[in-house]
């Protein structure tokens, strides 16, 4: 057994230990510790990814002393390692990019708590990605929720408290549904480890037993995770939660937390229930329809939003719609497109949130559009970053967003003929709507106030860390746009490893 194989387990444990160690620390120390841990996790994830690509097959890793089918396991394949890598990197950049504001927004005595929550969140994200055990999945989903809720409410303004409450209520409903579906699943399969449950599932479907309970399980499970990831029409908590928390939290929540549930859903679809069963259950069609509606409604709400954070938050609703549409196409290509879009969106949305904060800083901390006019001249880097993020979301070639759009479009054509036309039409319409709000904002931030040629306001220089984070995210966007083939190949291999 190679030493690298321990890395996923190490990363999870390391994050938890860091969380515990941070408890007596001061804010600054906790910050440094967290940054080191996140960087280490990113490096270890890269090493794991390299290892899994090298061997070409996934492996399971026993946690604790009991072997399968009783004990607890994590499983590492290409897809898991890839998502873990991207998530850790995005987490690092989000933290760096919003570090100033963490120290400004949060009461000094509570800063170390914030970093404990970050550590906890990362460990639960990794556990959700890697877990091979359904109930462990549930436990970490709850930990994820708690940590995320803490990250929203730690700002302690009235708005953020209410946002946290709404987030919590919706999340709990989602996890309640998820939990009861797991209980039922355990009931009919008798296993919690994914492989064993899958084998039992195959036996059940072959013998035709428990058809109706299975349908109930699939729908409860899907609805539960869909609520937690904010699929339209369960998105009402998103704008407040993303709009009123400190910027690192917004960025992490929108780009990682909601996506981790989708990853878990995909994993359960493939590894427990079996994708063929999912297709015959028609639940994918439901996801498809809601995905399409979400794509349009999210964009429409974003157009009507009056402040820039809400606009970005509503655009997340639309992007989640894209992902579910990809899943709903019920083909492997569609699934690959959805996963690619998860990565694209993670990178782009964090870029947008961080740069929007930079623009907001340059506009007297006002978030409404008129105040943002000309902000790109006052904070050139944030302006450029916002422009790149917007263009990527709109789908300009050479950027990541274009590749995901083209993947969606091509995978749509390989799917059910009835889905082809709706997909293509909604894809075009939503792209145009995206263009309306994103490009409008870009033009606005590049429109100077006052007389032409006259410069008003103060120039803002971003902190080194924040600037570096923005640069890296821009670069990642171009990398995904220009070198997408290796990544899509990896995703495809990863999906095949699932089956």
């Amino acid at each position, binding site marked *: 057994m190679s030493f690298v194989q321990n890395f996923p387990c190490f990363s999870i444990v390391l994050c938890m230990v860091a969380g515990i160690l941070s408890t007596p620390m001061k804010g600054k120390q906790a910050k440094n510790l967290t940054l080191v841990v996140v960087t280490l996790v990113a490096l270890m994830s890269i090493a794991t990814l390299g290892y899994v690509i090298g061997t070409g097959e996934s492996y399971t890793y026993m946690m604790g002393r009991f072997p399968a089918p009783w004990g607890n396991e994590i499983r590492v394949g290409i897809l898991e390692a890839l998502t873990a890598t991207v998530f850790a990197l995005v987490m690092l950049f989000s933290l760096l990019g919003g570090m100033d504001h963490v120290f400004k927004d949060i009461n000094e005595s509570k800063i170390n708590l914030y970093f404990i929550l970050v550590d906890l969140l990362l460990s639960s994200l990794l556990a959700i990605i890697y877990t091979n055990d359904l109930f462990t999945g549930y436990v970490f989903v709850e930990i994820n929720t708690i940590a995320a809720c803490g990250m929203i409410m730690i700002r302690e303004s009235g708005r953020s408290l209410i946002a946290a409450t709404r987030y919590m209520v919706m999340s709990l409903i989602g996890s309640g549904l998820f939990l009861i579906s797991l209980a039922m699943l355990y009931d009919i399969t008798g296993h919690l480890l994914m492989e064993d449950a899958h084998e039992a599932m195959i036996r059940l479907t072959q013998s035709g037993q428990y058809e109706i309970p299975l349908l109930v399980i699939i729908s409860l499970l899907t609805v539960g995770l869909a609520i937690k990831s904010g699929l339209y029409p369960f998105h009402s908590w998103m704008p407040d939660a993303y709009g009123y928390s400190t910027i690192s939290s917004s960025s992490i929540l929108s780009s990682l937390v909601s996506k981790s549930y989708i990853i878990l859903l995909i994993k359960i679809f493939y590894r427990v229930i079996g994708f063929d069963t999912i297709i015959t259950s028609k639940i994918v069609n439901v996801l498809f329809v809601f995905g399409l509606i979400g794509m349009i409604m999210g964009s429409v709400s974003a157009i009507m939003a009056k402040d820039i954070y809400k606009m970005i938050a509503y655009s997340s609703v639309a992007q989640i719609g894209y992902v579910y549409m990809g899943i709903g196409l019920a083909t492997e290509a569609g699934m690959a497109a959805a996963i690619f879009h998860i990565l694209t969106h993670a990178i782009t949305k964090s870029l947008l949130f961080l740069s929007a904060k930079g623009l907001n800083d340059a506009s007297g901390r006002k978030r409404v559009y008129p105040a943002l006019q000309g902000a790109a001249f006052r904070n050139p880097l944030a302006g450029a970053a916002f422009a790149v993020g917007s263009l990527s979301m709109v789908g300009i070639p050479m950027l990541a967003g274009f590749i995901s759009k083209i993947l969606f479009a091509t995978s749509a*054509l390989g799917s059910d003929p009835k889905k082809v036309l709706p997909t293509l039409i909604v894809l075009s319409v939503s792209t145009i709507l995206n263009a309306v709000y994103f490009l409008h904002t870009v*033009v606005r931030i590049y429109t100077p106030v006052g007389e032409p040629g006259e410069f008003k306001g103060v120039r803002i220089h971003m902190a080194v860390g924040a600037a570096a984070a923005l640069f890296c995210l821009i670069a990642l966007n171009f990398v995904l746009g*220009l070198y*997408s083939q290796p990544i899509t190949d990896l995703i495809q291999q990863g999906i095949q490893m699932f089956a």
Partner: protein
Amino acid sequence: MTVAYLLGAAILLPILAGFLLLFTQGKWKNRTVKCLFLFLVFVITTIFSVKLMLVGDYQFPLWKLTDTLEVLVRMDHLTRLFLGMTVAAWTLGGVFAFEYMKHEQKEDRYFGFYLIVLGVLIALDHAGNLVTLYLFFELMTLTSLPLVLHNLSHEAVMAGLKYLFYSVAGAFAALFGIFYLYSHGAGSMFAEGGYLADISYTGSQGMTLLVLFLMILGFGTKAGMFPMHGWLPTAHPVAPAPASAVLSGIITKSGVLAIIRVVFYTAGADYLRGTWVQYAWMTLTLITVFMGSMMAYKEQVLKKRLAYSTVSQVSYILFGLSLLNVSGIVGALSHFVFHSVVKNCLFLCAGAVIYKTGKTMVKDLKGIGKEMPITMWCFTLVSVTLVGIPPTSGFVSKWYLATGSLETGMTGYAWAGPIILLLSAMLTAGYLLPVSILAFFPGHQYDYEQVQKREPNLLMLVPMGLFTIAAVVFGIFPGTFMNYLQKIAMTVL
């Protein structure tokens, strides 16, 4: 792979120079040095482009986006035609701007983006497949936007947004088609004569026709085709005059280039001939031709009048293409060249008048011909060309267009085409010639005592003069050029 390096240099040189200017805004102490630097970039780019045009046909991938999507460049006769026109117009417009931009703010930014757009356009002319075309089409829209909203007044920003939204909506309509064609095994390269009729193409015919129509409509947005022409009369007048010149003369034509690539190099004329798409397309172009002329006739602001005239004239080109026969294509391509030359010149003349006198309305131009005789002579000569009075170049292209229309033998349309062209030609005379008449024959009330010479300097006169000479020479000696176009038309059908 020296061609690749040469091409890279031709594309990157103006783009990098443009970025250099953007980053050193306001730091150039000596304006002459800056202008010399710009001129040098224009000249070197032109030399590179000419060298590329002389290399011979080539086609190679520049970059692989994914295994199936690649950025492909291609050099053929069409590329040469568009590339030559782009570089020439850009250089002359740039020289004109050396003088003109003195009275505008922030000229460094203008020149920066002007150069970037040039690089993008060179790449666009080289596009060898639909994705490459789309890529540079979008980039062109985005980089040319700052030229439109240059003076950043409220009006200019609104016009810029309108330009942006129309263009983006159009491009996405086209993108829809590109998605469709790609996933059915077409669009990964251009080939003369198209290939959708081949067996390997798997799309259904009804759907394919629909997406082709959408693509024509989408790319037609840039060419100002009805019903997506709304941005053009708003965006052109607010831009600085040299920018309106190239917007009108070159950027609208990139829509034409894209449509040619879609119709003749992807779909194939045979695939479309006689279908509803051809009829719908023809109808739209004829509506645009007539409506554009009408609007121009009624318009009182000179630059707006010229913009409406562009709407109408570019649709002549599209009309010629929609005929799907040799005469039509020859007429269209020749009209592309002639109109580019003429409209560049007209906008430059209008710019010179604005620069020297600040007058924008047609009625204020009374007697301007006495003050700026050379400028107005250029204006008059190219106007005559555009109207199409023999033996000018406009006559040649319109002759081909009319012949082409009659050759189609389509009931109704065969005759409707020439009639509308004739009507529009009369309207063209009606909206352009009065400007000259007013300028040179101001009438009894005009006070000749007050005339003062206000002729602009050589930086402005030389580009205008060269355009005028080109327009006249093409009209008198069209033979060789028309044969060349004939050759292109034969290969693509």
